[in-house]
């Protein structure tokens, strides 16, 4: 083996190494960059577009090819294609730049879309556009966390955006029917959860139409169900209270 000096060092470029430990041995394969995730998601179907070569290495950068007996011992076969497929599917790799950026961008968009779907401008009761939300997210320097679900991050973003712009979750329109006996007591309990009470009708039972924050729905549902023992009811009139149709000035 040659002496490892900067002059005779061979840099691996355009190579993504996928590693897997099996049977106490480490195996590596050499792949093209930005291709492995496409293979895993099933978009890329041609394996030759993913692999640089179909040989399995012990160390790609040193060019050490794995021994046949090791392979058979670890994988139970010496069919290189089969082994490569296994390593591709299960091995660990460093995600390449483009892969990561596209992944982050997609998530960023997704978060913005969710926020735009869930929120309205409280003044006009109209949703914001995804573009605007994206810009606002950039303004507050929101960074996407790749290992957290987009939904969760969206809720986070809404909270943060509230500080810089007029935004709020679109309210749900609910109709509550409470039996007369518990109505008064329950109403007091529900009061902090209700944002706007649109109508209230009290004859045999209390009937209210109100707007609530969607986050409170579960709580209200529980409250009503427990307290009234199933006699009260909660009905969703609309999931999002937004202005409909186009408005001309």
């Amino acid at each position, binding site marked *: 083996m040659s002496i490892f000096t900067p002059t005779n060092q061979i840099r691996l470029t355009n190579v993504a190494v996928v590693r897997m430990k099996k049977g106490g041995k480490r195996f590596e394969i050499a792949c*093209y960059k930005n291709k492995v995730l496409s293979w895993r998601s099933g978009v890329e179907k041609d394996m030759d*577009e993913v692999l640089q070569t179909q040989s399995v290495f012990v160390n790609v950068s040193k060019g050490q090819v794995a021994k046949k007996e090791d392979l058979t011992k670890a994988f139970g076969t010496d069919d290189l294609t089969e082994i490569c497929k296994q390593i591709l599917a299960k091995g660990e790799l460093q995600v390449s730049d*483009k892969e990561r950026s596209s992944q982050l961008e997609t998530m960023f968009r997704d978060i913005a879309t969710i926020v735009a779907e869930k929120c309205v401008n409280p003044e006009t009761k109209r949703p914001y556009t995804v573009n605007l939300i994206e810009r606002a997210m950039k303004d507050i320097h929101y960074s996407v966390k790749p290992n957290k679900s987009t939904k969760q991050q969206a809720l986070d973003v809404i909270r943060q955006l509230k500080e810089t712009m007029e935004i709020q979750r679109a309210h749900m329109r609910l109709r509550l029917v409470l039996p007369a006996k518990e109505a008064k007591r329950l109403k007091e309990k529900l009061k902090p959860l209700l944002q706007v009470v649109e109508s209230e009708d009290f004859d045999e039972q209390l009937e209210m139409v109100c707007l609530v924050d969607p986050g409170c729905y579960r709580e209200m549902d*529980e409250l009503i169900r427990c307290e009234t023992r199933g006699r009260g009811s909660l*009905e*969703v009139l609309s999931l999002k209270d937004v202005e409909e149709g186009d408005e001309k*000035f």
Partner: protein
Amino acid sequence: MGHTSLQKIIALQRNPANIRNLCILAHVDHGKTTLADCLVASNGIISSRLAGKLRYLDSREDEQIRGITMKSSAISLHCTHGAQEYLLNLIDSPGHVDFSSEVSTAVRLCDGAIVVVDAVEGVCPQTQVVLRQAWLENIRPVLVINKIDRLILELKLSAQEAYTHLQKLLEQVNAVTGSLFTSKVLEDRAEKEEEKERDMASGDYVYDCSDGLEEADDSLLYFSPDQGNVVFASAMDGWGFSIQQFANIYSQKMGIKAAVLLKTLWGDFYLNAKAKKIMKGAQAKGKKPLFVQLVLDNIWSLYDAVVTRRDAEKVEKVVTSLGVKVMARDSRHSDPKVLLAAICSQWLPVSQAVLSMVCEKLPSPLDIAAERVEKLMSVGARRFDSLPKQTQELKRAFLECSSGENSPVIVFVSKMFAVDTKALPQNRQRPLTQEELSQRRELARQRHADRMAADQAATESNKDLNHTGRVPQEDRPAGLSTAKMESLTLKESKQEEEEEQKETFVAFARVYSGVVKKGQRVFVLGPKYDPTQGLRMLPEGCSASDAVCEVPHLSCCTMESIYLLMGRELEELEEVPAGNILGVGGLQECVLKSATLSTSPACPPFTPLNFEATPIVRVAIEPIHPSEMPKLVRGMRLLNQADPCAEVLIQETGEHVLVTAGEVHLQRCLDDLRERFAKIEISASKPIIPFRETVVRPPKVDMVNEELGKQHKVAIIHQVKEEASQSRLSDNLHVDPSGLVTLDTPNRLSTVSVRAIPLPHEVTCLLESSSELIRTLEQVNMSLREGKSLDVSLRTLEAIAGLKTQLESLLQGRKWRNTVEHIWAFGPRRYGPNILLNSVEGYQRPSVWQCLSRGDNVIDAGAQSAQLRDFDNSIISGFQLATLAGPMCEEPLMGVCFSVERWDIQSSGQSQNQDSVEKGSISPEDFAHHKVERRSDTSQAEGTAAGPGHARRRPEANAGDCYGPVSGQLIAAMKEACRHAFQAQPQRLMAAMYTCEIMATAEVLGRMYGVLGKREGRVLHEEMKEGTDMFIIKAVLPVAESFGFADEIRKRTSGLASPQLVFSHWEVTGSDPYWVPTTEEEYLHFGEKADSANQTLKYMNAVRRRKGLYVDEKIVEHGEKQRTLGKNK
């Protein structure tokens, strides 16, 4: 001539016989504003030296930079013609297509128009348009042939050639007028014939075979120099003449009668030098026509001497012979044009020629044609005779144009324009008096003291907070100091707002009758106001000062100030008599763009302005900083008011859309928003294009028109199965070959089977159009479910019944038998164009039509269906969610019927268990298990953030809550089932379509078709407009392809085709987005990857990418071809 004083103009305003209201119309760059400059210079408002360079009426900065006029602006001029003094209210209008709406606003207020035509370019598209506009508004045009100097200097024509050129040009213009005339006559005739046909039904009738053309007299219509309605000019060089002027000159010189000269100076006449006689037939005899000999030759030789040869001696001679004085600095100037202008503007001043033509040929407000009045006063198809008597009497007031105290005031506002508040005369800067100075000083001192006090208070209250925790005045629980800061900034921002409100709107208007006084109260008549109704509802003799009026489309307002429009300046006036153009302030609250003002409620609103160009360029506008949204909205409101043609709307998606007439107009609107109205940074982008998702019947043939075998069908299903097996619900999901999807809820207690069926096109249309009705139906049902009865009007019930029978008639055939009765719900949002169908055997639920058969909604419900009914709402909710966002790109569904074929909740043996679940007696561990499973599924549907771990930690808290979970699971299961059922059918995208009406001349037809074809447009039909060479083409065009369409079509056809776009319908796009070649023929034709453009896939991926959904695309197409160097090399 010196500067005309305001008093003079006010005095002139009282004499309507000597008022001329006129506008200057032309194609872009034919010299309207230059001509206007010359006229303005004649009044001494600007120096005549600067005339033509200053462009006085282009007061906007971007107008000056771009060199085109963008708005119509008025100026009042004084002129003396003969013994009379005249007042000219001149309106300069823009020539660019995008601003043709401004032309409409100008034309409406005028009685006459100067049409300017470039001598070289001749009749251009906009020339035709303005001639048509003038024609439609019944105003009399006169012609100015401008830029004659270009014939001499650029084209280097000889005088003789120029004469023929001018003759041809005149013919062109007259041809346009003639075609307008014939089309009018033909229209009249068609109308008459219709009437006659009606008559024919009743009585006998002899066919009249003359086409009416011969009868109608058109001799007065045409432009001809000997009629005196043509001026030849070069506004740039400051000269212009009419035949009359030369006739006068030569009649003295040659001793021929001026009248004879006037008739012969233009035309095929020549001067027989020997006989000193004017003879006919110059062309035949090869003689110089009189016009060339006497007129053009002189001008040509002048140009030759001054510009071409720069012969000082000759110039000297000419100057003396013309009796013109030239200043030394002009004659020594290096640019010969200056000298030329100096000579010409004294010899043949353009302003004099034009002004005298205007005074003689254009009508005064007194001469307003009865026909025009009737046309103005009768809105739409309504005939003038059908208007109430009092209204008809107003016609007299119009015709008299009386300024008497008793005559009713009638004012028409054609547009609103924004003026800087500072520029208003009452706010103009003037030296401060001593008193005011001291007052200001006092104010400043006080402000300073206040600030000091506030600071002190803030620090003190800060201390207070620590001790007592007192809540600040603003009721902010946050720290006091920050609250205080906020309140301070609030105050500041309020002040800022006040400062920003410095755009005042002034109405661009004309008085048709009566005297308008400052502070007068008038009625504002909306376009839909009906005088019959108004007269009935208002008490006799009611005036606008009685504030209360509840007549629809009628409101009152005060004219707070009245201005004389002087180009960029305004002069305040006390009153304006009839027949004048004026500006009215203080109307911005009640007038949006145009309106009719009157003191009499009998006055009908004037016919709306007819715009040649409708707004079609759409962009979405957003502030760069999201927090500036309110400013943007306010700015857009102002813009909407200030621009007659721009449309502003907020779409359901939350986009603020601006619709303009063209790219240049758009640019101006954006500039206005940025600099005047909103004063924020904004960005304009392509608007979001909506799509719909639908399913279609499985195709019978494949992409290469081969019969499909069974094999292919299997392949489709295989594909779906493959997809399904990837999803996490795989073990609960079954898809059978016919497309029936069966799905269990995660707790395996309930099963739903759903099938997606495409609805016939007509049904979709019907549902779409009757969405309002379905919404009321839904409301009625909801109240019925409660056992309450809502009062439904008989009419609504009838309408609902009608809808039902219509649906029944449309949904026929074996497949749809009895389906209408079993409709479960509509979606999305309960009134959309999708149907949920109840095909569950043995499950009876009240039908959606229950309101039609009230009373007998008692249904014998078995135990099973009763249990099902409890969860009825969950199924509906699931369906609503599924239809709101489809699986292709999360766009709403359309025209899909989901039929629920099987639905059971674990039967009786376990129903006990189920009940116990409801009572909450199930063991906590067991429940927690369900809970966890459920959470992961329904969190999507419910939109709560609680993760599974969260639920696991506190199962007890949820122990009582067990009804919810089942219903929640059911919603999710139903939604998933719908989505899979949808995917089991061939899916298609529906694109929004515009209908596009294009007017084009025959020669650009081909190029126009090219543009349409490139943008996936389809021509429906084309027909020729009778009497003209215009074609009217009707086509459909996908909204997705319409961005930049108007601009492209105008460019390609040199502005000869003008499209109009209106949203019409949704259309299924041709190809399957998920299609890949499967049969051998398809492989042969498309190759393995089928990467020839799949339009639907393109649309779908664009939407998915915009929404951040997963797009089935490789990040890098070829791994090998990436940059192979390391980053640090």
